[in-house]
């Protein structure tokens, strides 16, 4: 196999490069698994309480949509249902980014060419990237299992839980391997992985919502769409309840297929090129490229349209099942009563919209962060210097990117809310409830996304080297706080760190202006700090 020559040496190189990053991911993800079980154990000490909670989770369509299919009353099984979604998203991102980093990104920067000129097989880089990522997922799976065993859960179930996490990571390593062959830039490859993650989430959410409650009353039998999603597989593995080991075959099989596709594609393309041949473009710039928003818009519009399309579609699908969720709740008086209490100012649908927009809001913050970090990317790649060497003021340059980030976030959320509202209105005729509720909730969440954006701008100005790591950590932290904060019984001070904690729970609860104004104030203040700091620091590759 001469195409694999020196794979082992490249694997060592990859380990050297990732020696901090991958262990950090692994510790963080297994730490979340451990923390969830610990707090779940503390909260659910007696069996009667667990039975009540599981019955509620199985019967509540909103819980099925957001968390996944209930899987009995075992402590381990219940806490895995609670935490799996977050573990799955983080694991998929860890795996996807690792593969892209060691394949497409190396080609983009020209490192691959340098390596390829040495005595290295044609497939050695891809193989090393897959090996390190698949291996990291094995370690992650074992770490998750160890964390659960440390919380006094059974070893068999813990290993099954570890498998459900690691298997998902394998599949997304495969997805990223294919994406890295198809797309010409690391950015596009990562975006494709993100899109695949979104689709996997959506299929599973719809499948679980449309499923039915088993005779036991504490388990959900998911409908077929869940089985099309690797996230669904992880949940159907049902650790601590059924331990369906055979699902490892699904994970392994799909990973194998994806990896094979990646190898075949790699054989049919040139190093450095994607599958799509770049076409010649205009010899002259269209008027306006060098004015006002021109360049920033040109650079960011693809990102904006991708996120816009994805989140509009996601919200629309969520809204399209809102009516079914409402019907399912209506059949169950006890459930209707509990949910009614959670939505003091509204109905079950309002509660559903509030929870939906909380997810869409944090996803939209992903756009905010990505667009703002483009400023740092422009700087580190040396593209900022020739621009600042022209008559472009630093404030002006930054304002353009910030405008597209903040304006884009608001537009994405408003249009997502509108799309969801229109879908719901068309299905039920209740246009005001749908459009009004979702758009209002979307805009309330936009304030939190902007506050997070302000934080990114401030780090870019003050500590540019750390901007990337801090920005993504802040987003991941907000996701964990939002999804698991209450369950983990984190202190209020920690919950308050996430801007999304402060978003008024409209339309389920009354709208409050003060927190929204505070969030916007924080966004504006931090942005001003960042811009001022950027004006006074070194700019360019060396900064």
């Amino acid at each position: 196999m001469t195409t694999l020559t020196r794979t082992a040496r490249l694997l060592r190189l990859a380990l050297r490069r990732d020696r901090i990053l991958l262990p950090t991911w692994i510790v963080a993800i297994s730490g979340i698994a451990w923390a969830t079980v610990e707090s779940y154990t503390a909260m659910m000490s007696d069996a009667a309480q667990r039975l009540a909670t599981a019955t509620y989770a199985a019967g509540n369509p909103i819980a099925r949509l957001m968390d996944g299919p209930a899987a009995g009353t075992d402590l381990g099984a219940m806490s895995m249902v609670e935490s799996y979604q977050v573990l799955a998203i983080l694991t998929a991102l860890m795996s996807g980014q690792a593969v892209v980093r060691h394949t497409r990104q190396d080609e983009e920067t020209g490192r691959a060419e340098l390596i390829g000129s040495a005595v290295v097989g044609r497939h050695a880089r891809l193989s090393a990237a897959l090996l390190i990522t698949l291996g990291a997922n094995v370690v992650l799976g074992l770490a998750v299992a160890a964390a659960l065993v440390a919380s006094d859960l059974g070893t068999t179930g813990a290993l099954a839980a570890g498998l459900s996490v690691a298997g998902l990571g394998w599949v997304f390593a495969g997805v990223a391997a294919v994406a890295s062959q198809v797309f010409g830039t690391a950015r596009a490859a990562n975006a494709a992985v993100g899109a695949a993650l979104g689709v996997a989430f959506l299929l599973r959410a719809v499948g679980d919502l449309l499923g039915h409650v088993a005779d036991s009353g504490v388990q959900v039998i998911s409908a077929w769409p869940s089985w099309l999603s690797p996230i669904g597989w992880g949940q159907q593995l049902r650790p601590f309840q059924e331990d369906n080991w055979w699902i490892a075959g699904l994970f392994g099989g799909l990973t194998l297929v994806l990896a094979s596709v990646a190898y075949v594609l790699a054989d049919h393309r040139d190093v450095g090129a994607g599958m799509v041949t770049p076409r010649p473009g205009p010899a002259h710039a269209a008027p306006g490229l060098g004015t006002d928003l021109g360049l920033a818009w040109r650079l960011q519009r693809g990102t904006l349209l991708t996120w816009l399309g994805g989140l509009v579609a996601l919200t629309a699908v969520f809204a399209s099942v809102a009516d079914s969720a409402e019907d399912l709740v209506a059949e169950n008086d006890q459930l209707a009563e509990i949910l009614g209490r959670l939505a003091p100012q509204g109905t079950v649908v309002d509660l559903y919209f509030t929870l939906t927009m909380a997810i869409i809001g944090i996803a939209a913050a992903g756009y905010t962060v990505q667009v703002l970090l483009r400023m740092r990317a422009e700087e580190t790649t040396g593209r900022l210097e020739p621009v600042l060497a022209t008559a472009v003021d630093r404030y002006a340059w930054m304002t353009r990117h910030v405008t597209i980030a903040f304006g884009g976030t608001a537009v994405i959320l408003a249009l997502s809310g509108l799309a969801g509202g229109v879908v719901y209105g068309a299905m039920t005729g209740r246009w005001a409830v749908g459009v009004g509720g979702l758009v209002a909730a979307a805009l309330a969440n936009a304030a939190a996304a902007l506050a997070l954006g302000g934080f990114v701008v401030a780090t870019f100005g003050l500590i540019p080297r750390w901007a990337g790591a801090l920005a993504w950590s802040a987003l991941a932290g907000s996701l964990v706080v939002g999804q698991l904060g209450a369950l983990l019984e984190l202190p209020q001070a920690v919950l308050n760190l996430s801007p999304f904690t402060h978003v008024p729970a409209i339309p389920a609860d009354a709208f409050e202006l003060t927190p929204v104004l505070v969030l916007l104030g924080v966004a504006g203040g931090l942005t001003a700090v960042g811009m001022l700091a950027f004006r006074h620091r070194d700019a360019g590759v060396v900064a």
Partner: protein
Amino acid sequence: MDDVIRTRGLVKTFGRTRALDGVDLTVARGEVHGFLGPNGAGKSTTIRVLLGLLRKDAGEATLLGGDPWHDAVALHRRLAYVPGDVHLWPTLTGGEAIDLLGELRGRSDRRRRDELVERFQLDPTKKCGTYSKGNRQKVAMVAGLAADVELFLLDEPTSGLDPLMETIFQDVVRHMRDAGATVLLSSHILAEAEALCDRISIIREGRVVESGTLAELRHLTRTSVQVTAQHPITDLAALPGVTVVSTQDARSAQLEVDTDRLGAVIERLGPRGVLSLTCSPPTLEELFLRHYGQELTAAHEHDALVAAHSRAGSEEP
């Protein structure tokens, strides 16, 4: 006094590294000024400070009569910059990148831009991501040289260009000078500097160690003399300011002579029946190596020069 660029005691540190350690650089209006030094000497850092991209830690810097940091935008309308390591937006075409940078500066000459695209044989319809290094360099070159400005800051602008393009570049720079523009040309390609520059400054470890016209600098150093005579000339070595590099026999030798001692040597040679005599002024390369040769052995400047020469020679295949 009309200095376009003037720095005194310019200092810039990165952590513990002192990248600029008191740079004194003066560039007069209308001249092509060579800024020479090897990699890491501080050429690009100086230019980035002059562009207001980096903030100086100490010293003075004046650019076109203004402060490079505070008046950055106003000054940038009057200058153009060509970096040596060009990174472009992979999704834009070369033509779009050129127009973009021109438009951002505020003054671009469409006719001149098209003429330069033609001369440098650049295909402006290709995406920047697909360009080779040389072609990326051409994009930056056209964008910079098409500008209708009074000052050009060129930071190793020809790196990656083929000799044909290099010739075109030199021609363009000469025209710019004839039109009254000032050029600061940072380079380590000495032939380029020798061909183009009115004055040069040599920077070493963050300090300008030599500055002047090529003639002035040559005066400071040695002329190489190749001589063959009818009578033995072995006693020449005893003259002050003369070093014998090699001898074929007693009647012919290659000498290095201090330029101000040249007359005395010629006088001594006269009665020996000179058959052939070649005097070549020191090349810029020799000047340059003299400064960097010092790093090798500070004590014996000349030995170092010879050593550097033979090293340079042995690198040739």
